């Protein structure tokens, strides 16, 4: 009986667990409860993907009020797949979290940390599953507000300012989305996403519709950190507590890229969009700039988390590039890279977290003085870096391969050139870190041996690294769901 309510259960579990965490109050208990919920969501997400691959679309009506009057959860292979990304990264980060959090956050406050993390998960799942335009806004705000709180818990005081800036820009972005939703309601008279998609065909392309679409797209671009609206991201990711960087880097931006895909291809449809603005060209241009700018900034930065954060700006460029090409292969590459980049970036941020846990720093300068210790963490980082660059045999290669095919297919040579330059730049900034790891003599021998990171941190890190290699070789699972998702989207 209960399996019939799976979509709503995935939302309710973390939502209820968040206040429970506060009540439990004990550091270890709250971590354990959060871990259980994250694992439960992980299992549920895979089950949901399994059943959606069979029945194609699952429309869950909340309180059995029929849509479009009631509010529904809309699950198809696209968002079930995104949910699996979020749930997997979430489960891995929670396994990883215990010791890293204990070392960075005061013991009497960790229960609040886990509570906020659960709320963040609730918001993200809500954004993924909901079939209602206004609920989408509310869930965005739930995940964002808890995100601001999580980021502000970072060790340095930069974290506070980074969280504040994220709050201002994030709220402006969310309010833009709200304006867009309001104007869409004016022209279509409904808030149900699928219903909007049906009725928008009857709306002649007037100015209100154009304004609504522009507000929505700009708001979403802000939230997914598309260049030049990315300014909140680097500081927020590099100043946040290590576990928060691991979780957010793998989930938040991917979820908003999903929302962009849903709106552009499913709700509006390409015909409506083409009649209003040359969105494809704009997205391709901005993503090319994002790749170049993000990679360049990653080259000049000097601490690992900051390099990884700017590299995220560039990687978001790759994902948006695939969307902007408006082709099947492009979209496939984009969704594939969402999954792959989540695996890559979370693994790399985990390795950075291990270094911070033992050495207390992630600055390249300081790492040079401690070369030789923590071989497992360093090896994991190097493998993750190979995946980031796109060495064959890793997931990073697959997404680059598909994206290359997509650009060649649509004859977009500038984009192809930028992709290759971006990959070369990735080699450069990644080499900087490898050099600091392996090719420097210790400046002074302190005498004490640095031990490896604890097993509870190494195990999830290596789990993700192995997943990077596994999904780089066995592509059945990922590509099957993505192909189904892409073919279900109209207009391609």
């Amino acid at each position, binding site marked *: 009986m209960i399996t019939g309510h799976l979509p709503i259960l995935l939302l309710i579990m973390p939502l209820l667990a968040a206040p429970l965490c506060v009540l439990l109050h004990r550091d270890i208990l709250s971590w354990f409860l959060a871990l259980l919920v994250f694992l439960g969501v992980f299992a549920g997400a895979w089950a949901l993907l399994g059943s959606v691959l069979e029945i194609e679309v699952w429309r869950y009506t909340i309180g059995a009020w029929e849509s479009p009057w009631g509010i529904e959860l809309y699950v198809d292979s696209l968002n079930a797949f995104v949910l699996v990304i979020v749930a997997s990264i979430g489960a891995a980060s929670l396994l990883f979290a215990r010791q890293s959090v204990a070392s960075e956050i005061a013991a009497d406050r960790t229960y609040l940390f886990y509570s906020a993390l659960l709320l963040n998960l609730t918001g993200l799942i809500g954004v993924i599953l909901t079939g209602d335009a206004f609920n989408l806004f*509310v869930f965005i705000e739930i995940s964002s507000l808890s995100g601001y709180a999580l980021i502000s818990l970072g060790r340095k005081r*930069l974290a*506070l*300012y980074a969280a*504040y800036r994220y*709050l201002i820009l994030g*709220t402006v972005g969310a*309010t833009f989305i*709200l304006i867009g939703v*309001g104007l869409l309601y004016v022209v279509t008279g409904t808030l149900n996403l699928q219903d909007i998609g049906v009725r928008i065909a009857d709306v002649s392309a007037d100015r209100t519709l154009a304004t609504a679409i522009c507000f929505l797209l700009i708001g979403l671009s802000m939230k997914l950190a598309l260049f030049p609206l990315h300014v909140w991201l680097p500081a927020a990711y590099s100043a946040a507590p290590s576990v928060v960087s691991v979780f957010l880097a793998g989930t938040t931006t991917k979820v908003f890229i999903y929302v962009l895909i849903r709106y552009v291809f499913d709700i509006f449809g390409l015909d409506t969009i083409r009649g209003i603005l040359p969105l494809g060209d704009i997205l391709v241009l901005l993503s090319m700039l994002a790749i170049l700018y993000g990679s360049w900034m990653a080259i000049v930065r000097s601490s690992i988390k900051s390099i990884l954060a700017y590299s995220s700006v560039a990687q978001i460029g790759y994902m948006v590039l695939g969307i902007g090409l408006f082709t099947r292969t492009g979209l496939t590459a984009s969704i594939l890279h969402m999954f792959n980049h989540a695996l890559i970036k979370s693994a790399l941020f985990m390795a950075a977290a291990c270094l911070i846990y033992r050495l207390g720093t992630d600055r390249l300068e300081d790492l040079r003085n401690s070369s030789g210790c923590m071989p497992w963490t360093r090896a994991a980082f190097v493998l993750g870096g190979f995946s980031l660059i796109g060495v064959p045999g890793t997931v990073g290669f697959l997404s680059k391969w598909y994206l290359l095919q997509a650009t060649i297919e649509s004859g977009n040579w500038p984009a192809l050139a930028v992709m290759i330059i971006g990959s070369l730049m990735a080699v450069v900034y990644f080499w900087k870190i490898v050099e600091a790891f392996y090719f420097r003599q210790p400046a002074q021998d302190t005498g004490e041996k640095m031990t490896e990171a604890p097993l509870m941190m190494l195990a999830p890190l290596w789990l993700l690294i192995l997943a990077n290699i596994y999904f780089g070789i066995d592509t059945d699972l990922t590509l099957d769901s993505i192909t189904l998702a892409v073919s279900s989207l109209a207009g391609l």
Partner: protein
Amino acid sequence: MQEFAGIFNYLVVVVLMMIGFYITIANRNLVKKLIGLNIFQASVFILFISMGYVHDATAPIVADGHTAYSSPLPHVLILTAIVVGISTTAVGLALVIRIYKSYGSIEEDEIIEKMEEVE
């Protein structure tokens, strides 16, 4: 005149929106930025409420003698959005207090100056 009355609310929305947005972007004081953000959000609330209004209509309760009803949905949405706005302001102000405690200022220029000293 009739036409002007019809779009008056929307004019107010646009003016408020631009004022709020400008303050959010241009002001260097962290508290004033939040005030700007609030004005910006308030303008969106008015936008939603105005769109639900139908001239000469009543609340959507079926009764004799009424044929036109206002749409209650935007108003309900805005109740939720107001709550979201208040939560955002609360989190923002809490962050400003923490920033003031650790940087000793709420002026963006001074904070950035002090940040570079540390980095």
